[in-house]
């Protein structure tokens, strides 16, 4: 692993958008083992008072980290990663829901960069306090 150089506080990381569809939620359910029906069944979501099926928080969390791993090159550089699940991503039966991800370097110290990631759906944050520590060495 070569050294990541020229990393500065305030640096913007390239972002991206992803459209989450019901098929994506089912695929993640199978891959992760999270078969909670609120992620694929309209009645189950309605029974909990949700407006519709919602995406797995861990799917949004895992997707958001791509801002960091695409930039860092090697995902093995990620030392820690934390989020708060602030607002569910509602995914209707047809079409899908767009979430936009972007990142900023907030500190650089002792060979570790701390990156803050933003995840927005309709202009509203769906994850809070999204922080990853990245080994630069």
């Amino acid at each position, binding site marked *: 692993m070569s050294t990541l150089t020229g990393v500065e506080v305030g640096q913007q990381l390239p972002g991206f958008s992803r459209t989450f569809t019901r098929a994506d939620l089912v695929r993640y359910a199978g891959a992760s083992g999270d078969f909670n029906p609120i992620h694929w069944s309209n009645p189950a979501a309605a029974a909990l008072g949700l407006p519709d099926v919602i995406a797995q928080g861990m799917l949004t969390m895992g997707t958001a980290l791509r801002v960091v*791993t695409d930039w860092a090159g090697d995902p093995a550089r990620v030392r820690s990663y934390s989020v708060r699940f602030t607002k569910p991503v509602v995914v209707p039966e047809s079409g899908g829901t767009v979430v936009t991800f972007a990142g900023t370097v907030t500190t650089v110290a002792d060979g570790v960069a701390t990156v803050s990631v933003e995840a927005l759906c309709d202009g509203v944050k769906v994850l809070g306090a999204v922080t990853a520590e990245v080994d630069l060495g």
Partner: protein
Amino acid sequence: MSISEDHVGRSYPATAPYEVSRAKIAEFAAALGDGENPAYGGADPIAPPTFAVVLSSAAWDAMFADPELELSLSRTVHVDQRFAWQRPLRSGDEVSATLTIEKVRARGATAIIGISVALATTAGEHLCTATSTLMHTMGDAA
């Protein structure tokens, strides 16, 4: 009896060993929309960092099955999640996960529960610590 501060420090037996496979890594990376990342393919791939949830969530089962706590997954909200890695999980790793209750704050029908799950290889190498805050609401049986 339901979950209370008295349960802080309680640990559960480690989950059965789980072997991380190339196929499962590829499946998980594709589900994140990251199937083209070369780190997750080839002969000796690493797992996407949040793959750790496959192991850590399996460790939740023991706590939810503990009759003394009277917890139900369907009345649980995942408030926050943190992972700290010693090294990435790799294909071929045999991993088991051990859950410990770190914090409980019960107020009325609602309990805020802090848990920590340690992932280690069956040879004893520590890989990752997954910590979560859960908010649990008791059923309205009362």
